[in-house]
């Protein structure tokens, strides 16, 4: 374990986007204690692809992201990135291997400044001093407003700016995979459109982008593909074509139909 860690740690960004099917999830079973949430989830996403992951509350979308990131341990199955097995690796190892997460509710630290938020995340990913600085510069390059707000507390930022900090923070390690969990939450429609544009851009740069969303309609527009989950299983996997995604059925399967706009 430590040898692998050392090998990975020595050149976190040097590894080129090797061949292999991008992010591959196979037969994933996971849950909390007695409760099984994911039942044999399998799919794969290719570089450059923007995937929308939809489904009702409790379908297992967030658990799936947590299992990919490593905060939930699966009881069976595998998660591979460019052929490399991630199950059994720690969160920071996965971050260094190329996973970036924008967690539900943004997961920022409101009483810390923007710079401190980025710095804490860089250190959690065990980036060296230089790599951390380079990562912060990358975040600023993607969202110049981050640079302007660097010494402000996150709590004093608008919702849209906070979302940029959250996405920028995930860009610190120049990830190959971007996982966005409910990024539309609490955002005005116009800002939400910008976030979708950012997601598209990240995919166009050759990244794998997985977008977990309740506001499916808007998310489908820029997306390439849409997976629908229900009760811990993938029930639909196909192009992100609003004509073929069965939205009425999707809507009716939500506990609260009003939540799906």
């Amino acid at each position, binding site marked *: 374990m430590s040898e692998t860690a050392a090998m990975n740690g020595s050149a976190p960004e040097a590894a080129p986007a090797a061949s292999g099917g991008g992010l591959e999830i196979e037969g994933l079973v996971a849950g909390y204690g007695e409760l099984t949430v994911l039942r044999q989830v399998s799919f794969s996403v290719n570089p450059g692809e923007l995937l929308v992951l939809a489904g009702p509350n409790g379908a297992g979308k967030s658990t799936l992201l947590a299992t990919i990131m490593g905060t939930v341990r699966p009881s069976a199955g595998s998660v591979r990135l460019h052929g490399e097995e991630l199950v059994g690796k720690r*969160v920071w190892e996965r971050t260094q291997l190329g996973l970036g997460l924008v*967690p539900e509710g943004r*997961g*920022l*630290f409101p*009483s*810390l400044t923007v710079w*401190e938020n980025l710095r804490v995340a860089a250190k*959690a*990913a065990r980036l060296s001093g230089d790599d951390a600085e380079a990562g912060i510069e990358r975040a600023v390059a993607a969202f110049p407003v981050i640079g302007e707000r660097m010494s402000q507390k996150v709590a004093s930022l608008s919702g849209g700016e906070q979302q940029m900090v959250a996405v920028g923070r995930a860009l610190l390690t120049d990830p190959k995979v971007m996982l966005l969990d409910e990024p539309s939450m609490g955002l005005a429609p116009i800002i939400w459109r910008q976030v979708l544009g950012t997601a598209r851009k990240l995919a166009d740069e050759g990244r794998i982008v997985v977008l977990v969303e309740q506001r499916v309609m808007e998310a489908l527009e820029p997306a390439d593909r849409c997976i629908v989950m229900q009760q811990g299983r993938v029930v639909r996997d196909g192009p992100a074509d609003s004509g073929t995604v069965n939205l009425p059925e999707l809507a009716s399967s939500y506990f609260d139909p009003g939540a799906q706009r």
Partner: protein
Amino acid sequence: MIDFLQTTEGIITAASVYLLVGLSWNLVFNACGYLNLALGQYYILGAIFSYKLESSWGIHSPFLLAPMIAISVGFLGFVSERFLLRPLKDRGLSPLIVTIGINLMLLQLAKSLSPGLVIRPDNFVNGEISPGGVHIAYQELIVWGTAIVLTMALFLFFKRTDLGRSMRASVDNRRAADTLGLKVATYATVAFTVSAAIAAIAAFVVAPTQGSAYNSGDLIAIKAFMAVSIVGIGRNGGAVFGALLVASAQGYIARYVNADVSDIIVLIGFLIVLYVYVVRSAGDTLLPRWLRVRKPSTAVEAT
């Protein structure tokens, strides 16, 4: 006038101790999420260990004693958190109850190590300065200096170091810290250990000035708790103000009203502050009906 200044001088010494112990309360409250009700015993063990090391081992250099006390009491804190509090908390036992248990165990340890009721280790340096006729012992200057240095050190630690920033982050948003892979549980252990060591150092520097009873730790801890909870437990910013307020109330009342009632008056004042605080922050439904203030039902603050 001299008399007033002399009283004030004593107040600053007391406030220094409340400040250090108050910061220890905050450290554990922030990083662990509970109150360490055994804090007073870690405090008093600083004085008792210093006495023991002097009388039994013949160690008198404060530069040797300080690290030895910080490490040994810090180690007790480490063991308490890592091997008692954390596992028992994970099994569903309230940490408050566990800290009460630890308090009782450490009190027995303090009693068995203490030669009598009052322990008074030697001054680090004998002598005093007397500007304008106010007597300030060198030892008291050491107490003030220790409070200033340790407060600054903590401030810089949280502001300038990666570990400090990560600890603040995990206090701010524990779930997000977990998601990032920050070691939140380890921070709790670090905070508990450092908190015990700081409290012990406070007793180590102040005990030579007037002596400390082996069972006086809880009283100091309670006053320090008043000092930090007046401005809001967990907020280090107002701790200096809170410490001065409690020490002033106690010191001036003892000197100019009645020494026997000063503790009681301060305690009553504290209960009033606590009452206002509870009513303001959580609404008053926690209180018995006759103590409630009629308020709109939407008094709960969003956090």
